[in-house]
């Protein structure tokens, strides 16, 4: 009857049917999963040489920690968030599938970031020791789905794109090295658009990307390979921007009741571990923001959790023990760092397990960054307590007794009290002092010159700024 508007890509029915099948497939029993895996592997190896080695008995599913998402969903429901119990169950199956197919030690549902074309369901994973790094490369070749590990390749492809908006490449003078399997890259994130879709691994994040992400505010599209057209330019694709925002959210909003984790006081490198002697906090105690602590370290100005102080040499040391390819930017000779940018100035690493009550407030005195709420009004003996973060709308944690859960569901942007103003264009650089340029003589001057043609009026007019502005 009517036309116009843009059609959805999703619209073809076969795609849905497949998606529905994927969703139903999640409900396979263990035996069915093993059969399917065996079939998959057989198909893969079928092209290879030794088919005899692959037998059904070989299929071992990875085992690891996976929380009960239903229970979490029930708690989060008290806080008015989460996905509801039915969806939580589907998510649980999807996470279970991920856990069984990768050498993961633990998986947690991070949450969801909305995109304009499709959303990202995000799983936060910890690889088993020694796993993960090499796999990523292998799979990148194998499946073609995994986004490359470092941002430089993506940038390269961006540069090759003839349609890309030419943005001035302002390189930070000193590259802060990336954290490897620690700090902001402690966890690996996998994303998918819908429950049942294939999980895609996000690249690890560079300090540069985190710093750049702080300066921009873009809607996600749902396409990991989409360019991030922004000013200042973002060093990477949407996958990297997504990863950077996830890191910012994770390190700002992942909290737990005080005492659930304890830090092993290992001088320089304190790590957290579960507290076996954790005493459950009651609702009243949980309503005190000082009883909620961050268990992920804060990200410093320089985009790392551990401060990196550049040595005063031209050439910074590359982290030598990592085998994987380093950022290309690291090798670009940098202009002399004068003055030292803010992010290289010494900055104190805040203590681990800092109370959320100490977070920088939204409005001093009146509006702290977090609010704790009792989630049940009338029969509060069994009440959960939630803490919501106002800086990252959509971030919420909830606890009851010895259980707690964190989630983020939102557009992936930090709260701004004022309208977002893109960073101003860099100041127009000083015009180099014109050494030889002369003002075009005016007609009168010329006439005069021609008329007089004597050296008594050799002075030129002063250089005028107006001409600059009009360029």
């Amino acid at each position, binding site marked *: 009857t009517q036309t116009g508007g843009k*059609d959805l890509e999703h619209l073809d029915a076969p795609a849905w049917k497949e998606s529905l099948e994927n969703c139903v497939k999640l409900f396979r029993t263990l035996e069915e999963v093993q059969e399917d895996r065996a079939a998959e592997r057989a198909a893969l190896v079928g092209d290879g040489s030794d088919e005899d080695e692959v037998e059904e008995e070989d299929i071992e599913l990875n085992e690891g920690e996976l929380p009960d998402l239903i229970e979490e969903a029930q708690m989060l*429901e008290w806080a*008015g968030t989460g996905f*509801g119990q*039915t969806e939580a169950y589907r998510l649980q199956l999807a996470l279970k599938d991920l856990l069984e197919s990768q050498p993961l030690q633990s998986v947690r549902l991070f949450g969801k970031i909305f995109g304009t074309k499709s959303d990202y369901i995000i799983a936060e994973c910890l690889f088993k020791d020694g796993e993960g790094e090499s796999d990523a490369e292998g799979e990148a070749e194998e499946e073609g789905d995994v986004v490359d590990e470092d941002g430089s390749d993506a940038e390269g492809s961006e540069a090759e794109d003839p349609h890309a908006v030419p943005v001035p490449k302002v390189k930070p003078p000193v590259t802060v090295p990336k954290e490897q399997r620690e700090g902001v890259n402690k966890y690996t994130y996998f994303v998918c658009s*819908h429950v049942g879709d294939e999980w895609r691994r996000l690249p690890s994040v560079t300090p540069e990307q985190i710093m750049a992400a702080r300066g921009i505010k873009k809607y996600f599209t749902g396409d990991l390979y989409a360019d991030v057209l922004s000013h200042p330019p973002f060093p990477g694709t949407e996958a990297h921007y997504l990863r950077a925002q996830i890191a910012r959210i994770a390190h700002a909003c992942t909290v737990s009741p005080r005492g659930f984790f304890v830090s092993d006081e290992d001088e320089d490198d304190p790590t957290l571990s579960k507290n076996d002697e954790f005493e459950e906090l009651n609702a009243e105690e949980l309503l005190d923001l000082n009883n909620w602590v961050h268990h992920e370290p804060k990200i410093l100005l320089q985009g790392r959790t551990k401060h990196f102080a550049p040595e005063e040499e031209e050439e910074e040391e590359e982290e030598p023990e990592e085998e994987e390819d380093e950022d290309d930017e690291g090798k670009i000779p940098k202009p002399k760092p004068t003055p030292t940018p803010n992010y290289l100035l010494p900055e104190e690493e805040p203590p681990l397990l800092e109370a959320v009550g100490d977070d920088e407030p939204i409005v001093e005195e009146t509006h702290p960054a977090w609010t704790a709420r009792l989630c049940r009004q009338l029969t509060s003996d069994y009440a959960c307590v939630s803490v919501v973060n106002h800086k990252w709308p959509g971030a919420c944690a909830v606890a009851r007794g010895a259980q707690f859960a964190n989630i983020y569901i939102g557009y992936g942007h930090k709260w701004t009290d004022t*309208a*977002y103003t893109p960073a101003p264009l860099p100041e127009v650089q000083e015009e180099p002092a014109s050494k030889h340029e002369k003002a075009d003589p005016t007609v009168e001057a010329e006439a005069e010159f021609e008329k007089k043609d004597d050296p008594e009026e050799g002075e030129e007019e002063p250089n005028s700024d107006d001409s600059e502005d009009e360029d």
Partner: protein
Amino acid sequence: MDLAEFPSNLEQVGPFGFTLNPEQRAAMQASLSQLKANYKFSRVIFWGRVSGHSRDYYIAQGFDSDLLRGKRTFVSQSLTRWAQLPEVTEAQRVRCEGLAGLYTGDLSYQYVIVEEVMPWEPPKEKKERGSDDEESEEESEDEIIGDDDEDEEDEDEEDENATYRKLPKKKTKLRRHRITEEVRLAALVNSIDDDTSVVPRGAALIDQADRVSMNSHFQGLSSKEAGNLSFYLHFRPPRVVPKKTLLEKSRLNMAIDFLDRIDEDVPAGSWSIQYDGTGTTASVRSLLWPGYIAYHCPGSRRFGAIYNGNGVRNADIGFML
């Protein structure tokens, strides 16, 4: 979200991060039924949630038989009792637009807005006060400060506003307006309703007497239509349609196309449309009001919408797409 379809549609919005706990569901089912009975509404919808700093606001709306006209908005924090939100005057609306920052979660919280009194204004304001009965309530909350009289009645308030009181020394007259969060919230709901209120095409009907009702014959959009923004309309008094040319109007079915299409909104690109993984639900999201989500299950009469946000219009949308 229609009350009648309430628990079912709640499941629809779970994937967008909106849930209600058993306490809230139980309380709401009872209290909204009561609201509907007491006001004899033809339709009651659960409108959504505006998160405040300390507590959240839950909003419901009741409709008289003409759905586009008689609409009342209610607010609740406990979900047990609903209070009607006040009407918002144009002056209040403009002032509310200037307010930034999170909602506090306290309906009686007062925002103080200090405006410069333009030299030509005071007489006008006095005239209004005399002539317009409806506004008298609101205007009585405002005081002209800087005049050295008539400030005795609120001694305690003056301390708070000490900083502002120093300004009048410049001999500019300033007027202090007070806006309660209740009014700000009412203005917000109006603004969001104006910009959103999305329904699938054909869900609402207008009859010869210009009365708007739900179309009981509506069988839902097709899968193809449901994925197309041009099949969604603003359920608000139309603005664009009346301005269309006769030629354009001749292509419309005026019984159902009396509403504005959302894909004609300015700025373009302020809507995002998606299907869920299994193709059973299409969702239409406002990027101008992040948190507003309308949904429709193609081939069924099921549609609805919900707002779940912090009440902030996305002023940055131009940069973000």
